[in-house]
């Protein structure tokens, strides 16, 4: 066995079904992609007469273009590069990322992002709790812990990539910031496709789903986004200050919402174990599948459900191909 193993005990019938589903996926995947997969030191076929640009994952040795990583060759106009599969997150400006604060440093927070370095969220890139726009003073710096402490989960956007490779984040809108009452899940970044919408609100379940481009996915109870600009200062000040202090009374999350959070979380875990791309449609389909087959939340991580999801995904791709 040479491929990434799923660490689950399959019975004989489950193994047969699983392998059949995987074979169907194999046959459905576009042949262009499979022919273009390369590993380290494979020569990338390129027409030397045409001018081409060497992108990431390539290097020129003795007039030949070699791949330096394992992945799939992509060609965009004149750019030839190798798209890696299981690598760390590759950031782009404007990406929405979810991360965990690991350090409160001078005027900044360091955020773990599954990237080669930690992301930096400057104090000045963060909205003040009272909504005012002013220069950050040393008092603000001393009160940084009132905003985020270590192990908090935050959602931010990539502001820029410095010349030394480190990431600068900013969280200047109400939809960014501290995430509470939910779960953080980690999947491989290559399973998350960049799209226009990374914030999803699943109304039927009352769940917020944030799919970070770095592979961190947040599943939590829905929080109404409040716009501080609309707040008139005065009567709303007390409310704002009291809501941002950590001693506020936590409103109780109903059991059903918590079960839904766990169900979605497990669906994402199953998809990530099987190596399928994680999008809202696939997640909701998996959750509906588990509900229709009356699979308990904890049973979702068992081998039977994995096989069901694999077969469902093969079906889904076949349907999509027919269209």
């Amino acid at each position, binding site marked *: 066995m040479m*491929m*990434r*193993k799923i660490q689950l005990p399959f019975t004989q019938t489950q193994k047969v079904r699983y392998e059949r589903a995987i074979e169907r996926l194999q046959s459905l995947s576009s042949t262009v992609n499979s022919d273009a997969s390369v*590993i380290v030191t494979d020569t990338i076929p390129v027409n030397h007469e045409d001018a081409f640009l060497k992108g990431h994952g390539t290097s020129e040795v003795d007039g030949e273009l070699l791949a330096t990583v394992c992945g799939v060759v992509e060609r965009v106009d004149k750019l030839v590069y190798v798209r890696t599969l299981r690598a760390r997150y590759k950031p782009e400006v404007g990406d929405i990322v979810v991360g965990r604060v690991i350090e409160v440093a001078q005027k900044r927070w360091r955020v773990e992002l599954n990237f*080669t370095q930690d992301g930096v969220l400057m104090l000045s890139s963060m909205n003040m709790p009272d909504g005012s726009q002013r220069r950050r003073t040393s008092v603000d710096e001393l009160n940084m812990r009132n905003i985020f402490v270590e192990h908090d989960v935050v959602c931010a956007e990539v502001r820029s990539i410095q010349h*030394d490779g480190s990431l600068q984040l900013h969280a200047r809108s109400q939809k960014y910031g501290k995430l509470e009452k939910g779960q953080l899940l980690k999947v491989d970044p290559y399973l998350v496709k960049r799209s226009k919408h990374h914030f999803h609100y699943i109304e039927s379940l009352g769940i917020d789903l944030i799919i970070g481009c770095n592979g961190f996915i947040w599943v939590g109870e829905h929080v109404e986004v409040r716009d501080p600009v609309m707040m008139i200062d005065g009567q709303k000040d007390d409310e704002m200050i009291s809501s941002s202090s950590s001693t506020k009374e936590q409103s109780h999350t109903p059991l059903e919402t918590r079960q839904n959070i766990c169900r979605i979380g497990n669906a994402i875990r199953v998809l990530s174990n099987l*190596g399928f*791309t994680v999008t809202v449609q696939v997640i909701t389909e998996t959750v509906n599948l588990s509900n229709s087959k009356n699979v308990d939340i904890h049973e979702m991580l068992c081998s039977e459900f994995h096989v069901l999801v694999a077969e469902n995904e093969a079906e889904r791709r076949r349907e999509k191909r027919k269209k």
Partner: protein
Amino acid sequence: MEYINPEGLRLDGRRFNEMRQILAEVGVVSKADGSAVFEMGNTKVIAAVYGPREIQNKSQQKNGHALVLCEYSMAHFSTGDRRRQKNDRRSTELSLVIRQTMEACILTELLPHSQIDIFLQVLQADGGTRSACINAATLALADAGIPLRDLAVSCSAGYLNSTPLLDLNYVEDSAGGADVTVGILPKLDKVTLLQMDAKLPMETFETVFALASEGCKAIAERVREVLQENTKQLEYRRAA
């Protein structure tokens, strides 16, 4: 003792230029960025790669290059005698040697201000652990998506009963003859590791070295097969 009988068969039935069976698997440690298991006969090694990630110890930071750290350790149950200590001389030496080999083939300039940790654990030791570790580390690094100049592969060969022998196991290794370990970058055709204990005359050394290099090329083929299969599988599953 006779290590190769007049018919040309060794203690385990191999010929002088036959390697032990190789089993390689990628993606065994799910939490690591890259991991691999590499078996050469009875020698079994697990490699796990974490990185590139934030440097833990800023004082070790290298200017503009990634920091590569390697730790080699043998499980207490890997050999018959339970003598292994964590930081004994042999483990430290092997950690250093393997680190230098892997650093030569990682493109560290592309990952400044980061750290790559390679952890190697020998589960079963039956001769050739050094080579198995390098092969496992190469697979794990390729699995982690770290840019590599080439796939470093390694094999050992020795000289017993006036014959060069490929891929020594523990019994042959402890016979007191020479043991040459060679690490090669196959595509670039360069040698990154060359170690020998005991003495050999120059011509004999060249024969033994050539034999080990052949063994390396065979391992390189196998490593490439495993990586190709793994890459294709990942792409099939993901493509949507």
